[in-house]
């Protein structure tokens, strides 16, 4: 008996450890890490090197569900409500309408390609309708790319919020497929009732749960701080399960609860976040490994071609079309729409859902798992590998945050505005060249050759020194400039050739450069950008003004434009003032 335990632990822990180690390899190769985890699962599985036989669809679904609940709770917890302000309407449209449209489009594909009955086709559509939070979050952060905030937030919120929708649709369609015989009208009514119940209860219970978690955490006084994150996570899972038992969507409740708790003033928030990052990794590895183990590639035979055709339909038709329709009213540029359409990564959630037909007793349920497995593989391979390329090609990158090596937010009592930041002094920075450090940027602590020095006994700063100091959030961009390479990240096509004062008026600018601006001459540039982007400007937002373009270079915490850049010859890359709906439609057709 002890041998059995040891063998199980050896295999389980061994696989997780190998997955963790291979993350290094994947970083070097740029291969999507999740693909590697899935690959390890496959290698260990029935047709792989270890030949482990694992057929527990039920067990896999259980592990996957818990893992997904953890991931969703964490992704909610880590999503700042700020990005909701920037992107919520578009993202939530994608997460609801987008999922339905993708389901329908893929349903049609499946019906004609595989010759499945309509309900089963739609079920397959629903299974692959959601983008994978883990895949999207992760892949947008690797490869050292920084994508424009509006686009990034939209994708991230969508990927977190659409899983519950896809799960709901799939579960409902599985029920229909298993219990055929009801009339269409009955099904429609039941679908609607279920939908309202699941989503409504999920949201309400999530909000209530989130508040309760926050209160609970803030009430726990003398508990060992190490227990906080565990309690928080367990409470998140309690919300998940309770919402599910009460008839709501547990996944949605977990996500919402995370969102509420993460954006409340909760004690030890940083500690909880750090713990959750680790748990989230473990959940992802666990989920992908399990699903990889469950798959039996030798049974894929004969399905490869249809699966690839379906994957192509998803990647090139269904997703882009659904995204295009959903984003039509939101003033996204065609480049942005193209990118959102491309980053429709499918992942573990789809594979997880494809187990449902088997569990739900749909005849021939194994078929869905195999097809979906191959579709997800293709999506990870094709889309996952090309994200940074696509972002570059579509010019959606903003300059990365320069050279900050550490940014420690401290839980300081009282005024918590200060942050401890660390920099490694860049050899080409002016400081390394012997420039005096401005008084407001003096480091508290200098680490040189493993020794901690104070500014008084360190002498002049040298390249490679690590410096630590306190700064307010608005000082950070200036500190970046002091300590890191001068002008290194400033591509003028992105942040403009010249800086302009935000309180310069349109009239002044027009006179200086003969722009012939007729209206709104008294309006300041800051105000103009503020209005043009609905009071939610983000760095990188552009507005064409005749032959030049204005770009938002910096915003403060209150989302006010604090620096404006002027781009010469913006050419056709420019992103115009968000036009009215009709105008937007016209622009679309002219493009």
């Amino acid at each position, binding site marked *: 008996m002890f041998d059995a335990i040891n063998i199980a632990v050896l295999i389980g822990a061994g696989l997780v450890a190998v997955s963790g180690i291979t993350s290094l390899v994947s970083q070097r190769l740029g291969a999507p890490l999740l693909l590697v985890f899935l690959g390890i699962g496959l290698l260990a599985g029935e047709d792989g090197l270890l030949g482990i036989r694992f057929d527990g669809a039920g067990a896999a679904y259980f592990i996957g569900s818990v893992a997904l609940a953890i991931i969703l709770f964490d992704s909610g917890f880590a999503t700042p409500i700020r990005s909701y302000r920037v992107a919520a309407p578009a993202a939530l449209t994608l997460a609801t309408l987008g999922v339905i449209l993708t389901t329908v489009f893929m349903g049609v594909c499946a019906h004609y390609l595989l010759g499945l009955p309509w309900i089963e086709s739609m079920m397959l559509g629903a299974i692959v309708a959601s983008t994978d939070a883990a895949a999207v979050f992760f892949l947008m952060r690797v490869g050292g790319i920084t994508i424009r905030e509006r686009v990034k937030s939209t994708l991230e919120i969508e990927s977190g919020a659409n899983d519950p929708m896809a799960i709901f649709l799939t579960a409902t369609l599985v029920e229909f497929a298993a219990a055929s015989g009801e009339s269409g009208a009955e099904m429609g009514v039941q679908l609607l009732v279920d939908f309202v119940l699941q989503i409504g209860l999920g949201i309400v219970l999530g909000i209530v749960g989130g508040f309760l978690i926050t209160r609970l955490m803030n009430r726990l006084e003398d508990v060992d701080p190490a227990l906080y994150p565990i309690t928080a996570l367990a409470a998140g899972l309690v919300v998940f399960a309770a919402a599910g038992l009460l008839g709501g969507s547990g996944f949605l409740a977990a996500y919402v609860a995370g969102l509420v708790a993460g954006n409340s003033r909760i004690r030890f928030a940083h500690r909880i976040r750090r713990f959750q990052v680790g748990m989230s990794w473990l959940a992802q590895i666990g989920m992908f490994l399990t699903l990889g183990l469950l798959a039996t590639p030798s049974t894929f035979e004969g399905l490869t071609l249809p699966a690839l055709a379906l994957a192509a339909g998803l990647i090139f038709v269904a997703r882009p079309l659904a995204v295009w329709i959903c984003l039509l009213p939101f003033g996204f540029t065609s480049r942005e729409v193209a990118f959102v359409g491309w980053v429709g990564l499918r992942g573990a959630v789809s594979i997880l859902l494809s187990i449902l037909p088997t569990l739900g007793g749909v005849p021939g349920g194994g078929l869905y798992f195999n097809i979906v497995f191959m579709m997800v593989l293709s999506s990870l391979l094709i889309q996952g590998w090309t994200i940074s390329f696509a972002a570059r090609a579509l010019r959606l990158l903003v300059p990365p945050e320069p050279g900050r090596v550490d940014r420690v937010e401290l839980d300081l009592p009282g005024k918590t505005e200060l942050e401890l930041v660390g920099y490694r002094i860049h050899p080409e920075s002016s400081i390394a060249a012997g420039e005096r450090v401005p008084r407001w940027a003096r480091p508290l602590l200098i680490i040189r050759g493993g020794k901690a020095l104070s500014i008084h006994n360190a002498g002049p700063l040298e390249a490679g020194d690590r410096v630590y100091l306190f700064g307010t959030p608005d000082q950070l961009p200036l500190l970046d400039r002091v300590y890191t390479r001068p002008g290194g990240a400033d591509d*003028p096509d992105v942040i403009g050739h010249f800086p302009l004062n935000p309180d310069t008026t349109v009239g002044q600018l027009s006179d200086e450069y003969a722009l012939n601006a007729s209206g709104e001459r008294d309006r300041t540039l800051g105000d103009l950008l503020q209005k043009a982007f609905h009071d939610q400007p983000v760095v990188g937002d552009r507005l064409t003004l005749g*032959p030049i373009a204005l770009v938002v270079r910096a915003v403060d915490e209150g989302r006010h434009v604090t620096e404006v850049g002027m781009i*010469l010859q913006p050419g056709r890359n420019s992103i115009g003032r968000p036009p009215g709906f009709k105008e937007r439609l016209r622009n679309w057709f002219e493009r």
Partner: protein
Amino acid sequence: MDIATILRTEAVKTVSAISSKKRLFHELGDLAAQVYGLKSAEVATALQERESLGPTGVGGGIALPHARLDGLPQVHGLFIRVEKPLDFESVDRQPVDLVFALLAPQDAGVEHLKALAVVSRTMRDPALCAKLRANSDPQTLHTLLTAQPRVQAA
């Protein structure tokens, strides 16, 4: 459009030190008067006025002051290398030592912007800037500035 068409050899100069931004604009005004026969004070004022919209120090020790003026036949360039960098309120708070000024005719809105783009692109080349900083002879500086591969002005 390339640098050679807008920058005459005489309009390139090395100065050991300049005390302030204001003094720099007067220096540029004097140079413009000398080379292109413009009114020194007018040039200095126009450059100073443009500066009120936002500093033309683009970072990395480079400034590209510019303005439109009455009575110019074409876009004119001026280049001054300051051996001791001066404070210019640049975006990156770095003092400035390479100054490329552009003066454009009042009616040359688009030409002006094109010239600015060309100069801006040229001056963003770190290799060129390093060479400019390593030389002080005006003739050499002019050769370096105009020897740049023709950049597309489209």
